[in-house]
């Protein structure tokens, strides 16, 4: 049964996933080329000064990629469920609705996590080509809020797509956009280190929250 659920999610997500993979690899390649170009046209001391004295981020091309990825995954996964009310087909399957929705969320989250891991490893490797290991680790820690924004964007878009009532849908979008905005306030390296555990716990509230729109969809007063 779980294999069948996995099959359906894979069929919905595979082309989006392939396109996202190309975009992620392309942006990592772009970041590598941009860094290489910087070191060719500027003195190394100057780049060091920008990065670690002026605290300018060198890896901003990746900044919004996880959020866009999260929203794209949710759209590919839950857009078809939403279209023509196909969500009803799944809700009639002989499986508990909450487990079904959580399994969908797990599939999307795992794929998003795989792309995030690719970004983090790529970032660590690219920064590590020109800077010491500590700088590479710092770049990844600095990017953690952006990766968390990917999860928030994924869950926010999921809530909005599953929710049957427009006012609630807009409320979910508003709250999620505000949360995503909160994760892009840094101006230097590792500014979120202390607050990240709290933000992570807050973001995990999306896990029980996705059950609510599914329940409302199943038992709504009117369509």
């Amino acid at each position, binding site marked *: *049964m779980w*294999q*069948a659920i996995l*099959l*359906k999610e894979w*069929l*919905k997500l595979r082309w989006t996933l392939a396109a996202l993979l190309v975009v992620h690899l392309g942006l990592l390649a772009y970041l590598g080329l941009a860094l290489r170009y910087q070191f060719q046209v500027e003195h190394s001391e100057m780049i060091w000064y920008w990065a670690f004295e002026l605290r300018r981020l060198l890896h901003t091309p990746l900044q919004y990629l996880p959020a866009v990825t999260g929203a794209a995954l949710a759209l590919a996964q839950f857009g*078809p469920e939403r279209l*023509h*009310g*196909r969500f*009803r*087909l799944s*809700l*009639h*399957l*002989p*499986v*508990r609705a909450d487990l079904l929705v959580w399994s969908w969320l797990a599939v999307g989250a795992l794929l998003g996590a795989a792309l995030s891991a690719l970004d983090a490893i790529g970032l660590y490797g690219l920064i590590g080509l020109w800077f010491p290991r500590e700088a590479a680790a710092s770049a990844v820690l600095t990017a953690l809020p952006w990766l968390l924004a990917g999860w928030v964007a994924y869950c926010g878009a999921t809530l909005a797509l599953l929710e049957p009532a427009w006012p609630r849908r807009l409320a979910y979008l508003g709250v999620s956009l505000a949360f995503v905005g909160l994760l892009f306030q840094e101006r230097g390296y590792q500014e979120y280190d202390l607050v990240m555990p709290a933000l992570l716990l807050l973001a995990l509230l999306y896990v029980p929250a996705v059950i609510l729109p599914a329940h409302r969809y*199943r*038992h*709504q*007063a*009117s*369509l």
Partner: protein
Amino acid sequence: MLVVFRLACSQIDTEHGMSPVRPLPPESAIEIDAITHRYGQRTLYRNLSLTITKGRVVALLGKNGVGKTTLIRLLMGFLRPSSGHCRVLGQDSHALSPATRARIGLLFEGHLTQDYMSIAQIERYHRPFYPGWRAELYYDLVDRMGLSRNHKIAQMSCGQRSQVVLGLIFAQNPELMILDDYSMGLDAGYRRLFLDYLAAYLGEGGKTVFLTSHVVQDMEVLVDEVVFLQRGGEILQMPLAEFRHSFRCFAFSLPASAQPPAADAIIHNPDVFARPPRLYSFAERDQVARHLAARCPEIALGEELPMTLEDAFIGLTGKY
């Protein structure tokens, strides 16, 4: 498979347009208890009650917009009525357990399906959910389209998509089928094939079917009971045989100066646009003649006219 069909179909008494006599267990498959439902200011039903006994084939008939699809949504718990409640296979519509849902084959309006899948993928997807899955029934139906099993459902015509969805429901082998407008998009040949399959399915015993369709003539050889749903939520439920026996159509002649008879307790629905003009009634000819003589003496009642089920449906619900 066709042998199975022929055996099942041979049991159908087509002469009288009746389904074969099947033992009728007393339990109800569907209970709708005094539901009221509104869309905004419009009341679709008020205190509507309906019971479908297990083992019966029941058609829900009504004109466009009377709320047939809404009733099915209410039944399956996708809508909550303003008051009253529905039970399906003994469980509240809003608390159907996964095990009970597995016993219900549900056809959503418009043959809704996961059309991003192929013929083979959608079968593979549904198979693990149903312990009594019969893939051979599904493939027997869909292979008749002559399409590759890798063909995407999204690239099919409406009728071909219908074949896929109905094939999935047969493969599920449910105890109760709820089919919302099963005939939509089907050509005449496939509709007949579907009816053959349905007859074979019913021949296995213990199966209940609750369906809606706009092809009323199919009901003649298929259903045990009819439920006519009228605007405002009034229903008329009776065995098909009783309806065919008791609902009558009479020709009448109307002088140019005379007013056409109005509908009342005896005259169900006068149709002055038909040639010859006709009126419909549950009363016998003598009673209708006496009634007309008393109320509209200028109108001469003619002979009782033969009717198909579709004629009777239009006679009962009106053309417009």
